[in-house]
């Protein structure tokens, strides 16, 4: 059975990630989000903390509910997106896996407006973080949308394979 419910929920997640990505660019340039923007950023923050298994392993906190199912579905896409934008991490000065994982763990706080103010980071540093987070969210959003639409191209595989990451460098290396 084609799961229209899951498809619509993943569509929602992609759309919100895309909106949050745009808001992060605004934040990096010093503009404040409106009420809708704050709501979106908070939702995405919660969602990412559910998706990122490394932060869940650290905090042990889960928001639960249907968000956890969406999160489990998006998780492989999330990590393959991190891999795909690895050059941007390196350019921003992240030189080890631990540093990248540290960044991912701080994403939730970064996405909450209050969190960024209490970060103890310089404005310049925060702007770099925002831009990097924006790129990551945009990449995840784009990947989900490509999985949903196959970018307008005919599908070779069956529908259920659409949730598998199609461009994962690491999987390609060791599979």
């Amino acid at each position, binding site marked *: 059975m084609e799961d229209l419910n899951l498809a*619509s929920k993943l569509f929602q997640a992609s759309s919100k990630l895309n909106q949050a990505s745009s808001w992060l660019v605004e934040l990096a340039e010093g503009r404040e989000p409106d009420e809708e923007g704050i709501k979106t950023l908070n939702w995405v923050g919660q969602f990412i903390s559910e998706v990122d298994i490394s932060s869940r392993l650290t905090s042990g906190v889960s928001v639960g509910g249907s968000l956890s199912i969406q999160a489990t579905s998006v998780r492989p896409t999330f990590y393959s997106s991190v891999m795909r934008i690895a050059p941007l991490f390196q350019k921003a000065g992240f030189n080890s896996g631990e540093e990248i994982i540290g960044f991912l763990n701080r994403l939730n706080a970064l996405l909450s407006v209050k969190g960024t103010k209490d970060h103890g980071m310089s404005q310049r540093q925060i702007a770099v973080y925002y831009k990097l987070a924006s790129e990551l969210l945009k990449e995840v959003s784009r990947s989900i949308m490509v999985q949903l639409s196959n970018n307008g191209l005919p599908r070779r595989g069956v529908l259920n394979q659409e949730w598998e990451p199609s461009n994962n460098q690491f999987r390609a290396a060791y599979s």
Partner: protein
Amino acid sequence: MDCREDVCRREIKRNGLFLAELAEEIQLTEDFSTDTPKKLAMLVGETSRLLAESISTAPVDSLRELNVFLSRITTHLRYVERAKIIQTPWSVIRTVEHFFKEQTQNKADFIIRPTWSYNYSLIGEFWKFYKNILSCWSWFPLNELKRRLKDSANFNDNDSIYCISFPRTEQLNCLLHANWGHEVGHILAGKWIEDKFPILWNRVEPVISKKIRDSIVGNPPPVDPLFKDLAILDLTATQTLAAMEVAKCGITELLCDIIGVHLFGASALCSAFEFSSRFLLDVSPLQCDYYPPWRYRIREMMEYCKKDLEALRAVKDSEVFLPFLNWLDEAKKVASTNEDTTEIDSKTVTREAYEFIRSHWNSIKSDAISLLPAGSVKPYSLSARHEIIRNLIKRLESSVPPNEICNLSDSPAGLQDIISSSWIYKIECISCDSSWGDSDDFDLLFRLVLKGIESSQIHRQWGSKLTGTS
């Protein structure tokens, strides 16, 4: 976005308006057994028209999303087109849709259409899919769409539409259509999955994820040490997702099987057994879209109607049922070995997922059954209805449609009784005459059953009025 923005906006608008016209044309020019296909066409049409009308207010960021959505809903018109009278067993569609509506407490409408792939499936729910996506866009006037739907077709916000597909080559084979019970089960199973699965899964996922992680750490992937930790996270995520899908799909399919047997009795088991006879019994869920192995499914269905079949053997004058019961005994032997569970237990992902299913199975089953309307909470029982079924078999033996309990009675036969009697009659024919089963034999049986279902529906709907007139 660059100059492509204008092109994209213009093309999506043109496409949306064309889709709206197409949907309208289908509603006006095609014939359907019920109004449900037209209802879906109207939903597609009104949605695409309003999207086209509102596209000038859509931000650039939404254009690609909009295109993905429009492409998706365009394909929904194929369900409408395939439900045309000429392509369906039109004489039974009303009865079947009525039966399905009863099981969903009149909350859902159904399109029943053939598909060229040899399979049964349920797709939906459509309106919820539309609402979920359209509500992502603050620029889209969702309330205006609801108003238009209400005005043009009395379509309410809590209405829902599903599409049930059946293999085109089995158009007339109402016996195999007992599989429809499984498909309608998807609605209840879907509800259970949506409401209860996240809660249960959320409790066990950290434990399962840790077991998977430990097995990966014990045998780490050969990658650049700089990214080793990320690679372990990535693999853990992928395998945890697979475990969740195995558990979710396993519960869904097993529940649907049980609901099928609950509604149609042993006929549903016979359909699944016959359908699966052309496939392998013990394929891992990881190799076939997370579906449980057939042997596992048949075993569970067998278990669910075991007591009813034992009771049927014990009824007075049970001779007419014996070939059927003996045939099912043979099927039972297939389910009694454990190659399927050996396959499941051989991999961490499937073992953990099925451990989860096994530990919650009884409560899952009773939760899902309780979602049925009060009139269907009790399972359909062959042994309780053996007298009625015996009468219907007698009619089939005389090449008379099994549409009523006895001649000129006020009791039109029920859908489940007609299908049950035809299964028992078919197995009786096969066991008594090894040459039975050429195309004429099947054709006669299928047409008698179709006619029986159609006549019983007419009888039920118009019988009292006709009597009154006469």
